[in-house]
């Protein structure tokens, strides 16, 4: 028998930990069709044919966020055989709020009461039997991080699914709300059936004023009138509005249950510890220096020590193999086109994909630590005010900051943002943050044109990137992302020690994901650029790059850059090769200008640029569409090439405009 479980719970309830315990590391990660909300599923260990689907962490089944809509649509239309609802026992009141909504879906449900170890160690207790009676659903105490009770949970969940055990009763409404729900349920029985909606869920959502549900039911005018009357009546009697009445009803029921079943020992040690840690981490004066310090250390370790060390080691290995193969091919006198394809196409492509792996591994190791410990929420709390003007929240701060290192992990890091809108906006804006691969370009140009003002030029580029990011953010907020952003109402979860398992798993997951998705894209792009560079239109191998297809393409697009001050085809060509990797622009200039090596490029650049046009070129390089690796990440996170192409067109147009302004205004001044 095939069984599918939907795993649902609040963020920070230990959902991912439980998912990992149930599946091992054997899981598939993807997006929900049509939306970029993460979807994971995996087979349950030791039970053939049993699958668990990890749904987004949510607090409620409201119709407002993509995550909530995705979850409820999944539950209603895909109908898992049972819901495993994981809740944080130390925060039981708020966690049960979602449970009451899940119970209305007419799907077998089992409650996994997580973090019971913390409850016990604090001398508190929860009466499991009484809780089962009161809620009318099976309850299993577990500790996901210690793998306690997970086997029993799986067994009972399977039983629950096999016997189709539905919640025993749904009598948690009372008084006027009860009357309203039941009257409406009677009224819409047929419509709910026709629309494929669970009756109780539909009735409750109507009372709440849930527009998508009301629309789906296709109710007639007279019914809508009666419903309005019922709701008005309820509102008058309760002296409150429909939404507040429902929230209040659920919390009131939960409070009665908790009073009977939960014996609290007051504040838990873990909670107290959290408050103490926060007295430093979110301190009025220390918070920002501490945050900057932590990020500095992460950058230093990622790009300075581990990442670059591993990258160097890796590229040494690749270079070694490349050289060996190169010599081997020369000895056997292989066709020069094939030789070049293998060395400059295949090996270069593989090398450029692999060069990202160390950075992704190391960076995501640290990011998982920040995320799992609970510190990331504090960063959002501390930095929120800075990002609010551009319509984002503090949560986007860390991904954007990582953009200064490398756009690829930065874009991948947006996946932890809880709102689809924030995620999309952050993905579009992050590439404006000057990534470290652009530094070699800046270095060559400043050495050639700005010898007395190197630091000033470098800093101004970074500042331009940030300013353009802010302006573009405001523009996006006022145009395509208009309307109310997802409210910034965020839980600050207690600090917890991240588990090694979860951190390593996340690290591998990200690296594997990148390899899987980006490999083909980067590989093909490198081969295409190689082919363009090596052949003319008659597909003859060219000795001089000037005769290649790439050069012809460069000559074709060069006029576009004339108003920016660099009409030479070689500049345009470098911008094209820069798409494989930004630092490749330097070596392209070396080839096109006939320099012996990249170190001697600088003096030759004056053939193509004057200081002003050089600066204009730098601004364009800073802002135009990111490299293919980043494109692949953008495509993955935005859920398709169409959105990714739009984002990249936007970035390139912005780059052109800014460089145009720089050059034209500069021409007037100098």
């Amino acid at each position, binding site marked *: 028998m095939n069984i599918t479980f939907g795993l649902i719970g609040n963020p920070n309830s230990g959902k991912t930990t439980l998912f990992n315990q149930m599946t091992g590391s054997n899981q598939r990660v993807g997006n929900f069709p049509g939306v970029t909300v993460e979807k994971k599923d995996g087979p349950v260990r030791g039970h053939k044919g049993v699958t668990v689907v990890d749904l987004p962490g949510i607090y409620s089944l409201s119709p407002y966020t993509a995550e909530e809509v995705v979850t409820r649509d999944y539950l209603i239309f895909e109908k898992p055989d049972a819901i495993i609802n994981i809740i944080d026992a130390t925060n039981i009141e708020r966690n049960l709020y979602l449970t009451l909504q899940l119970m209305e879906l007419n799907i077998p449900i089992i409650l996994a009461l997580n973090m019971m170890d913390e409850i016990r160690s604090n001398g508190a207790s929860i009466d499991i039997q009484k809780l089962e009676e009161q809620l009318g659903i099976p309850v299993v105490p577990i500790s996901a991080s210690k793998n306690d009770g997970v086997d029993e949970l799986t067994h009972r969940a399977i039983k629950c699914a096999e016997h189709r055990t539905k919640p025993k009763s749904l009598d948690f409404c009372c008084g006027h709300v009860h009357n309203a729900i039941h009257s409406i349920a009677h009224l819409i029985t047929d419509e709910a059936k026709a629309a494929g909606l669970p009756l109780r869920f539909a009735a409750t959502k109507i009372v709440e004023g849930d527009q998508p549900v009301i629309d789906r039911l296709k109710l007639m005018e007279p019914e809508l009138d009666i419903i309005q009357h019922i709701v008005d009546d309820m509102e008058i009697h309760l002296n409150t509005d429909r939404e507040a009445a429902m*929230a209040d009803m659920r919390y*009131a029921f939960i409070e009665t249950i908790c009073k009977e079943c939960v014996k609290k020992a007051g504040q838990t040690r873990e909670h107290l510890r959290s408050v103490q840690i926060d007295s430093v981490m*979110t301190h009025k004066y220390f918070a920002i220096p501490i945050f900057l310090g932590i990020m500095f250390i992460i950058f230093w370790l990622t790009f300075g020590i581990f990442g670059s060390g591993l990258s160097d080691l890796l590229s040494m290995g690749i270079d070694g193999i490349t050289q060996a193969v190169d010599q081997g091919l020369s000895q056997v006198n292989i066709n020069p086109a094939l030789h070049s394809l293998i060395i400059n196409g295949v090996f270069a492509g593989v090398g450029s994909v692999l060069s990202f792996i160390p950075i992704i591994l190391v960076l995501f190791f640290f990011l998982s630590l920040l995320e799992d410990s609970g510190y990331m929420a504090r960063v959002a*709390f501390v930095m929120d005010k800075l990002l609010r003007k551009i319509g984002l929240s503090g949560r986007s701060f860390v991904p954007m900051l990582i953009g200064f290192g490398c756009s690829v992990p930065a874009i991948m890091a947006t996946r932890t943002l809880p709102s689809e809108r924030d995620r999309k906006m952050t993905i579009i804006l992050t590439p404006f943050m000057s990534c470290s691969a652009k530094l070699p370009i800046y270095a060559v140009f400043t050495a050639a044109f700005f010898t007395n003002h190197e630091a000033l030029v470098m800093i101004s580029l970074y500042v331009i990137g940030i300013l353009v990011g802010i302006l573009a953010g405001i523009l996006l907020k006022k145009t395509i992302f208009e309307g109310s952003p997802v409210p910034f109402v965020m839980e600050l979860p207690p600090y917890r020690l991240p588990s090694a398992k979860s951190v390593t798993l996340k690290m591998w997951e990200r690296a594997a994901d990148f390899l899987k998705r980006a490999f083909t894209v980067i590989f093909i792009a490198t081969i295409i650029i190689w082919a363009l560079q090596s052949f003319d239109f008659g597909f003859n191998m060219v000795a001089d790059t000037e005769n290649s297809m790439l050069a012809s393409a460069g000559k074709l697009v060069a006029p576009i850059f004339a108003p920016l001050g660099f009409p030479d085809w070689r500049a345009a060509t470098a911008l094209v090769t820069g798409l494989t990797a930004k630092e490749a622009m330097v070596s392209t200039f070396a080839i096109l200008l006939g320099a012996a090596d990249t170190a001697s490029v600088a003096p030759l650049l004056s053939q193509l640029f004057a200081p002003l046009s050089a600066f204009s070129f730098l601004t364009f390089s800073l802002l135009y569409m990111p490299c293919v690796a980043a494109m692949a990440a953008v495509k993955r996170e935005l859920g398709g090439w169409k959105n990714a192409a739009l984002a990249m067109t936007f970035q390139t147009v912005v780059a052109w405009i800014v460089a145009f302004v720089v050059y034209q205004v500069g021409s007037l001044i100098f």
Partner: protein
Amino acid sequence: MRSNPEFSKSMPEADYNMKTTLDKLKMGGKGIITNVGGEGSLRRRLLDMGLTPNTLVMVRKVAPLGDPIELHLRNYELTIRQEDAGKIEVTEVAE
């Protein structure tokens, strides 16, 4: 009257008159929610997170840049922006 039993016992009668909004409470100040304003997704989110009438809330902290604020309610920590806190009416509770 429904409220957190930990605090409701010691609540003096006179304090019922100290009506204000959540953003006006000082750090460490406590209040009982009387009404949640706002609309659409924001209001729904506030209610879903347990900011319902008759709930006791404490303002634990203000962020270093002056906004948002950290609240303690229903045994957990929540952060919301000053602007949104201004839509939540409370009756201040003295220590």
